[in-house]
């Protein structure tokens, strides 16, 4: 520090605050770069001609953007795999929502004998925490016995291992927050449980169902292990599988790879834009 007269602008307090702001800005800048740079690189590489990424130069943005990789992967049948991913995601989500809603309804509304509800909850929790590879061999054998290997139906069914415990836990929180008074009033008026569930609880739980649906869908959309094990043909492959098959041992085909990556990420990023408020509850699985 020089010993000159301290100007009004550089009073110690203000220097401290300026330094604080600079530190904050630098920290946020670094965080942003760390989080976003790989994604920017993916989007940029997906429109670079091969000569621009098979290089030792550290260039991020494309010089001559090209759509060739997108055209190439679509020609190679990617739309089929996109459709498969959509079907499996929709199917697994719908099944989990319906079955999960019934279970969560029962757990929050009906009396269980001998605290069996706690046993059931413990079971759901353990399954949610269990590494899926543990049951991969038997689940393969079950699907095989049912003739569901290499079918989207088989994936939808097996994904319930991930999505159902998740949906039950998340819905449990939402349903517990809806007071049972309305249904009791309806019951007095002679409405059946099914009708009360459909006309009273369902509308009240709609926001919770929507949030659960999105997070269940993300789980199914991104799933890889079971797709790897239970799917054989390209016509039934999902997007993560298509990506894995392209991270081959032989080539650095990053352009097509990043084109698929970008296409696969787009629906989820759009969903996220709608869901900002629910992010936390969703990702921690409503486990609190």
């Amino acid at each position, binding site marked *: 520090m020089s010993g000159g007269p301290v100007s009004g602008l550089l009073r110690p307090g203000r220097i401290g605050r300026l330094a604080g702001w600079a530190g904050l800005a630098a920290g946020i800048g670094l965080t942003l770069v760390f989080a976003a740079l790989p994604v920017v690189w993916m989007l940029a590489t997906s429109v670079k001609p091969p000569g621009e990424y098979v290089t030792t130069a550290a260039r991020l943005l494309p010089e001559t953007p090209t759509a060739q990789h997108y055209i190439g992967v679509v020609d190679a049948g990617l739309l089929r795999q996109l459709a498969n991913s959509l079907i499996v995601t929709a199917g697994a989500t719908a099944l989990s929502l*319906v079955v999960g809603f019934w279970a969560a309804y029962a757990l929050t509304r009906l009396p269980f004998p001998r605290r069996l509800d706690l046993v059931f909850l413990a079971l759901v929790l353990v399954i949610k925490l269990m590494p899926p590879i543990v049951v991969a061999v038997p689940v393969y054998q079950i699907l095989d016995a049912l003739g569901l290997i290499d079918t989207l139906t088989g994936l939808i069914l097996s994904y319930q291992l991930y999505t159902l415990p998740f949906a039950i836990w998340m819905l449990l929180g939402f349903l517990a927050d809806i007071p049972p008074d309305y249904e009791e009033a309806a019951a007095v008026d002679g409405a*059946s449980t*099914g009708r009360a*569930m*459909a006309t009273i609880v369902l509308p009240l739980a709609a926001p919770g169902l929507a949030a659960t649906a999105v997070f269940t869908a993300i789980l199914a959309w991104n799933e890889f292990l079971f797709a790897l094990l239970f799917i*054989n*043909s*390209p016509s039934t492959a999902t997007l993560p599988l298509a990506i894995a098959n392209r991270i081959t*041992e*032989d080539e650095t085909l990053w352009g097509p790879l990043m084109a698929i990556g970008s296409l696969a990420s787009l629906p989820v990023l759009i969903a996220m834009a709608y869901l900002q408020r629910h992010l936390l509850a969703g990702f921690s699985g409503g486990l609190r």
Partner: protein
Amino acid sequence: MPRTLLAAGVVATGALVAPIAPALAQDSLVIAGRDGVYAEAMAWLIDAYAATNPDVSIEALALPYAGLYERAVIAMREEAGAFDVVLLDDTWATEFMSEGWLADLDALGADTDGFVDSTLAVSRYPYGEGTLHALPFVGNVELFAYNRALFEAHGLDRPESWTAVVEAAATIDAAESDVDGVVFRGTKGNPIVTGFLPILWAHGGRVVDEAGVAAFDSEAAVAAVDLFLSLKPHAPEGVELYNSSEVRDALQTGTTAMAIEVWPSWVPALDDPSVSQVVGDVEIIAAPGQVEGPAPMLGSWLLAIPADAPNPEAALDFLSFATAPEQQRALALEIGLPPTRAAVYADADAVDAYRWYPAQLDALENAQPRPRITRWSEIESILGDYLQLALIGEISAEEAVAEAHARIAGALGG
């Protein structure tokens, strides 16, 4: 009762699930195939086939080596009827054929005239004389490549022994700053083993003996592993993860003087100035010997029809098409796939394009297959794990040989 919801749920799930049950058209073929150049060849074939058979729809998987093996084995073991045609490395053939996973092509009426004998022998089970279960598709044989221009510049002769290979690698590595002495596939599993086996054989070592019993634990094997390890200091950084494309690039860019393992299908463009910087410089020869003479190693790819294939007749038609002389010649010229038809090697255009074809045919005809045992893939994987542990310096050559032997013996005994 929640009947309304139940009904809604059933309808919703049913509507989602019903239309996606696999709807296999009558004339559709699913082929389990490889990636890279094999995928190019398959795509070319499918186009050519579609031109004359417009009513057959074909889809082909392009899988990496280990991925194809896993997928094919799982599909066969479960009899899922997933594939009509599978592309098989001949090292997997014994397992697939002895398990009864492949259709009998003799019974289906396949024609075997004109194939190179060594490739036909591995298509039969038992080896050589048994029932035909596949047709040879790619006539690969393991060869050795060295950059003659570089060798001459350093006063070196064509390497005749593995010791000479190490010496040449050291000489060139020390003298040239931009050039490594030698390159090989260091990736664990099949790649590292494939590069190593010719060295083992040249030292007189074996993984399993004639009777199919583990025979790896020998001084010859230790010497072979030691020699293999002594190549690494003269190899490029990161050779532990190298696979075929890295080996090919190292050779074609002239940044490596030798490749201990080259398959003809990798290097069709060696003399193509648009991709190669070493036009006319690289010689492709049979691998060197050591205590035993050179024994080229067979690595053919076979096309087979699973026993549970949904569409065997259509599959055989495709197989016959893919391995017919015209297609074999076209694939050699267009894609650089080594043919299994002896006649193609004598074709004037083909020899024009690939000056090493006569030598290649000679090597192919004399090529030795890898052990014809059912569990070779598992043995290979065990060997690959330990070789790589030795390569990254985690265990010594002696430990690698002893531990790999014990495990191989266990796998064969169990």
